[in-house]
């Protein structure tokens, strides 16, 4: 068995040699470069666009504005360049097209746009009277008012978090090529099948006329899940100009047209008995919406699914602002979860109950909103494993009780939890006449390890060595499969890959046992053992290699299978140590332990990397990451990586990842659940809780920057 083992990434070699071709690495003969011009007002109209200077740049083929851009509609997003209306700062107002990148960039700088601006609203604080409750955004369980009345202790606090931008290291890129009414697009996409549908709908051509490829994706984190308008415009330009066109976004452009995590405010009210039992949980949030969309992505799911509480009220309000439309971002539930897990820490101090113990007392294996039993939940094991590995029992709960030199040391913890998607998926497995195996499915590897895990799944199902299996992904010519978002890839697609491989196995075994030329002739199909590339009789006295069976057969054996999986919920517990320098208000995270119930772990190496990645995002969200909007212009003032700070190597300590590793019985993914988004959700709260433990200072506004600790 290779599933579960820490198998090295099968795409590792391609990625460490530069051999892996990403979208922006494609260069096609005759290809043009498109480059965007971004608007500089957030609200109002374009009154004139002067493209004369841009057109005069040698090599410039065309300059598109709202006056001459191809007419497009999108059923998903506001489509720029179709009129004069401006809805947010950094909206696309023109596109230059030239024979080299430098020419297109130079021309873009020479486009002159004149506006009739209006005063925008950029932040929730400026539109508090416009907060409203969109449809279907309220859930009430039991009687929250009565629950609060029955409480012996209550905590009510407000928490807030800023907008964030996904910032994958690979910028969004798109390369479009038409052949008559057939379109091929290399697209930085977390979902080639969805992308295919979007391109087909936009251009009014059959889906089968569109091929989308994204064999390697340099990170997405949610921001590359839809096809954004710039990709549709680039494809339209390629069609109009009759040449392939490539567009790669500049880093700064990624702060306005490819979405973000919405600014978020929340109020959490907890009612509890003196023993810590929750009697009521009221969680109201307000998140930023855009003028053109009501979508919201942080839904207080933790408040509805995590703890035993009979009376729950969640309410997700919105406020429309003159900013771009937000999207889910690793991990959507983080924002609302931060409020809940900080409030629980506050409650633990009010009650004088250890924060782990408080969570244990409110543990449930029944979904408190629906009353249904979870198919499996080992969260109590996570508390125990994590606390033991961290040494939590040695903690003196008194804030400010531990110093090391001039630094305050604090320990904090939080539960981690995220739901995961499961989308119907299909996969093909084919054993060639030489015994080698190919599996193809149109899901993606966005860095999480899909190539590797599916190689393991196929190898195990057939009983062949890993190096006999090749997996190909993210091409719409392959059987359709899940979007890689919402922790859904492994959970959605593994079952189909496994089923196809098992079907091929059965067919090949059948070929062997039914053929008098095989040493296995006459053995019943069910009794054959497959291992190491061989078929064995039950007592292993006779054997034949797959290679030999296939050589005799002389033709490939192939199967395509489909599977649906259940959605699920993966939980865990995270423990952190921080050191706070009181002179500078500087916080460093010096230790981290996470313990998780992700169902069955498919590959310990890649799963551990998901934990490290999530934990690091949690450090970033807690200590540095935030997008700053100028309130007068609704413009992002830090649209670059030197002022939008991500965690760097020196910010991240050793991180210990522990897995309960018990298969979820309802999972068709060999017992695995979706997991990628769980190990970040609790980290900002755990760090804030540790800062409180270190200093006695409770900060309720992310990120916990030095200014907030120094006041």
């Amino acid at each position, binding site marked *: 068995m290779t599933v579960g083992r820490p198998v090295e990434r099968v795409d590792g070699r391609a990625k460490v040699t*530069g051999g892996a071709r990403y979208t922006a690495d494609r260069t096609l003969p005759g290809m043009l470069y498109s480059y965007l011009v*971004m608007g500089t007002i957030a609200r109002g109209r374009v009154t004139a666009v002067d493209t004369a200077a841009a057109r*005069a740049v040698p090599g410039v083929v065309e300059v598109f504005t709202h006056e001459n851009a191809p007419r497009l509609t999108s059923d998903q997003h506001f489509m720029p360049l179709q009129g004069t209306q401006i809805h947010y700062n950094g909206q696309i107002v023109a596109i230059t097209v030239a024979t080299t990148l430098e020419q297109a960039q*130079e021309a873009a700088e020479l486009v002159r*746009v004149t506006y009739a601006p209006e005063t925008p609203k950029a932040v929730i604080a400026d539109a508090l009277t416009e907060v409203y409750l969109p449809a279907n955004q309220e859930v009430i369980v039991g009687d929250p008012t009565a629950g609060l009345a029955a409480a012996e202790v209550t905590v009510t606090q407000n928490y807030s978090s800023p907008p964030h931008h996904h910032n994958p*290291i690979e910028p969004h890129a798109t390369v479009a090529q038409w052949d008559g009414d057939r379109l091929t697009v290399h697209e930085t996409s977390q979902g080639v099948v969805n992308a295919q549908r979007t391109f087909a709908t936009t251009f009014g051509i059959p889906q089968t006329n569109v091929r989308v490829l994204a064999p390697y994706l340099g990170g997405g984190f949610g921001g590359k899940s839809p096809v954004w308008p710039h990709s549709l415009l680039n494809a339209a330009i390629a069609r109009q100009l009759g040449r392939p066109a490539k567009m790669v976004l500049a880093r700064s452009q990624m702060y306005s047209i490819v979405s973000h995590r919405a600014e978020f405010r929340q109020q959490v009210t907890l009612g509890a008995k003196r023993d810590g039992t929750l009697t009521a949980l009221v969680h109201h949030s307000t998140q930023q919406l855009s003028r053109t969309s009501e979508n919201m992505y942080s839904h207080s799911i933790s408040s509805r699914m995590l703890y035993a509480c009979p009376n729950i009220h969640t309410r997700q309000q919105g406020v429309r602002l003159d900013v771009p439309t937000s999207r889910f971002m690793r991990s959507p539930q983080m924002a609302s979860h931060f409020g809940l897990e900080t409030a629980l820490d506050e409650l633990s101090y009010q009650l004088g109950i250890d924060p782990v113990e408080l969570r244990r007392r409110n543990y449930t294996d029944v979904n408190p909103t629906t009353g249904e039993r979870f198919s499996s939940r080992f969260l109590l094991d996570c508390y125990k494993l994590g606390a033991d590995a961290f040494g939590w029992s040695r903690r003196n709960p008194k804030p400010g009780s531990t110093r090391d030199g001039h630094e305050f040391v604090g320990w904090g913890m939080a539960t981690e939890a995220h739901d995961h998607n499961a989308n119907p998926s299909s996969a093909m497995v084919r054993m060639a006449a030489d015994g080698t195996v190919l599996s193809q499915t149109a899901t993606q590897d966005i860095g999480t390890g899909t190539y590797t895990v599916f190689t393991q799944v196929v190898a195990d199902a057939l009983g062949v060595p890993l190096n006999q299996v090749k997996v190909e992904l993210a091409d719409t010519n392959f059987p359709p499969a899940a979007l890689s978002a919402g922790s859904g890839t492994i959970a959605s697609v593994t079952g189909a890959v496994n089923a196809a491989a098992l079907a091929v196995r059965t067919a090949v075994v059948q070929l062997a046992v039914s053929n008098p030329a095989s040493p296995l002739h006459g053995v019943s199909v069910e009794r054959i053992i497959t291992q190491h590339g061989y078929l064995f009789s039950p007592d292993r006295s006779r054997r034949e290699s797959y290679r030999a069976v296939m050589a005799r057969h002389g033709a490939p054996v192939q199967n395509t299978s489909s599977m649906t999986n259940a959605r699920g919920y993966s939980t865990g517990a995270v423990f952190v140590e921080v050191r706070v320098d009181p002179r500078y208000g500087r916080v460093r995270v010096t230790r981290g332990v996470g313990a998780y119930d992700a169902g069955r772990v498919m590959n310990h190496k890649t799963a551990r990397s998901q934990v490290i990645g999530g934990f690091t995002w949690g450090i970033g969200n807690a200590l540095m990451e935030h997008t700053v909007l100028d309130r007068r212009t609704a413009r992002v003032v830090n649209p670059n990586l030197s002022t939008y700070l991500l965690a760097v*190597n020196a910010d991240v300590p050793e991180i210990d990842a522990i897995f309960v590793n018990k298969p979820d019985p309802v999972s068709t993914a060999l017992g695995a659940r979706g997991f990628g988004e769980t190990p970040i959700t609790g980290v900002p709260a755990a760090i804030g809780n540790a800062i409180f433990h270190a200093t006695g200072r409770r900060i309720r506004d992310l990120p916990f920057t030095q200014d907030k600790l120094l006041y």
Partner: protein
Amino acid sequence: MTADSEYKRRTVLKAGSAAVTATLVATPAATPAAAAQTDSSSVDMTLRVNGRDHRLAVEPRVTLLDALRERLDLTGTKKGCDRGECGACTVLVDGRRIKSCLTLAVMRQNVEITTIEGLVRGDKLHPLQEAFIRQDALQCGGCTPGQIMSGVACISEGHTRSADEIREWMSGNLCRCACYPNIVAAIQDAAK
């Protein structure tokens, strides 16, 4: 090729953003002088990359990064920001690590440029490439070539005496997937 070979450094360095400035007021049309400056002008140059001479004719404003990627099809070197902030474009010039987005191709003649494609010896990976795979120091791979080139230099500079020292000297290379502890482990492995 024309005689006009003015190095348009300003254009190069501003290239990360095409946001239009001064847009609330009507702006004058491009002056004739400005129009003249936009004449394209390629120059012949030779870049020595991974032990091979490449002759190419590109405008002087073309960065080393864009020359490698868009002209020489050496796309292993990645562009993450085009302004020196992410490290995805790190290459070695005479053994020193530099960000290839912050230098012009024309300025890098008569030097040895090493990119990620130049680390392999025949079929054999460089020890740091092997260590990256072994330690799972990569996920999406978008930052990985830059991390490895930077790591090779970090080792040759001798900045590997402790994990903390590696963390510090590798902090110019961002990894959004956040493989940092594994990158440190890989560099420690390869430095042995």
